[in-house]
């Protein structure tokens, strides 16, 4: 009798929570809501970094004792090159959203294709950023050259780190998809993170690179 009850209980659980997810009082899955809360808090982080750059970008040698070189990051910007990496990141947002819709349609092959493409485009972006940093350092603008350079490298470096973490998540998800089932919602949550990274770059590219 106890066995029958146990089987029935298991069956009911399977009906209610078919993919190990749980009903929530908010009507939104915990993972998705947690990602949104994290993204909202990440906005605070990037807000602080962007503000720091804005405060110091025109005062590279203003603080006594930290004067350093008067070279400003914006004197070294290569806008055509950075524009190209911006387009690459924009394309990765498209491939990410196509990956999510493929996952929703249970189209496993295309989901993997788009996940891989997104990771590849993200890697190209990070590669471009590393190249840009290398050029700047060779031009004499190091991390500790002055407060403006420190603020610039901290801001763009944190963004690059976010992209790198996103690539790790994408590659992990791609690898896992060959071994076990991947819930469409998991792809969507990773997609939220990726699009947020793109949104942050939209702001950085405009405020840091394009506005003189």
């Amino acid at each position, binding site marked *: 009798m106890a066995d029958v009850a146990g089987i029935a209980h298991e069956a009911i659980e*399977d009906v209610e929570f078919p993919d190990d997810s749980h009903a929530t009082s908010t009507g939104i899955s915990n993972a998705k809501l947690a990602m949104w809360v994290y993204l909202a808090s990440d906005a605070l982080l990037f807000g602080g970094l962007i503000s720091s750059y804005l405060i110091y970008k025109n005062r590279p040698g*203003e603080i006594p004792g930290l004067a350093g070189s008067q070279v400003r990051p914006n004197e070294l910007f290569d806008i055509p090159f950075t524009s190209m990496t911006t387009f690459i990141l924009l394309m990765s947002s498209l491939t990410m959203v196509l990956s999510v819709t493929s996952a929703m349609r249970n189209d496993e092959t295309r989901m993997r294709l788009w996940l891989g493409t997104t990771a590849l485009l993200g890697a190209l972006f990070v590669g471009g950023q590393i190249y840009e940093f290398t050029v700047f350092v060779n031009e004499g603008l190091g991390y500790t050259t002055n407060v403006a350079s420190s603020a610039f490298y901290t801001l763009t470096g944190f963004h690059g780190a976010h992209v790198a973490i996103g690539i790790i998540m994408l590659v992990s998800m791609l690898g896992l998809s060959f071994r076990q089932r991947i819930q469409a919602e998991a792809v969507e949550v990773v997609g939220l993170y990726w699009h947020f990274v793109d949104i942050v770059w939209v702001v950085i590219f405009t405020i840091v690179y394009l506005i003189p």
Partner: protein
Amino acid sequence: MSSENETGQGHFGKEDPSSPEAEEHSGGVAAPPAPDDRTVPSDGGDDDGRHMGHLDEGHTHGPTDSQYFTIFWVLFGLTALEVSTYFWESWFGEGDVVRRVGVAVLLTIMLIKFALIAGFFMHLRFDAALVKRVFVFGLGVAFVIYLVAMTSMNIWTDNGNPWFNDPPPEVTTTTLPDGG
């Protein structure tokens, strides 16, 4: 069409919940509705199935793939327009008007791109109101806090940018007397 496809649950791999094995495991009960079908937006529950993950006859409610491509091309065009402002001074000549218009255009395009990516690619436009509130709250708090912080750092009056104000005063160094 399997029940999974109808509900758009979106599993992959070895354990297919609509498979005979899964059905047997769940006591022969037909595959249940997807979790998203239980997800009712908190903004009054007027869910017409637009939220992510709810499929109907194989179509997502929300933008289709072709609409995503359209949004991408709009973003692409806006980014190209943004980049073009970098060359405006060489095209139209240097001047305060060109610069100020350029900055206004850049900020406007930035906001439009932000809204398009958040609204469509992140599905904020189709998601529950709670999600919007959480994200907008974070953005709003960040904006206000750092606006206050930048103001307290005199960025509007002494940022060294000659567009807005006079350049910052020269840094003076004080030499301490020897043997002081």
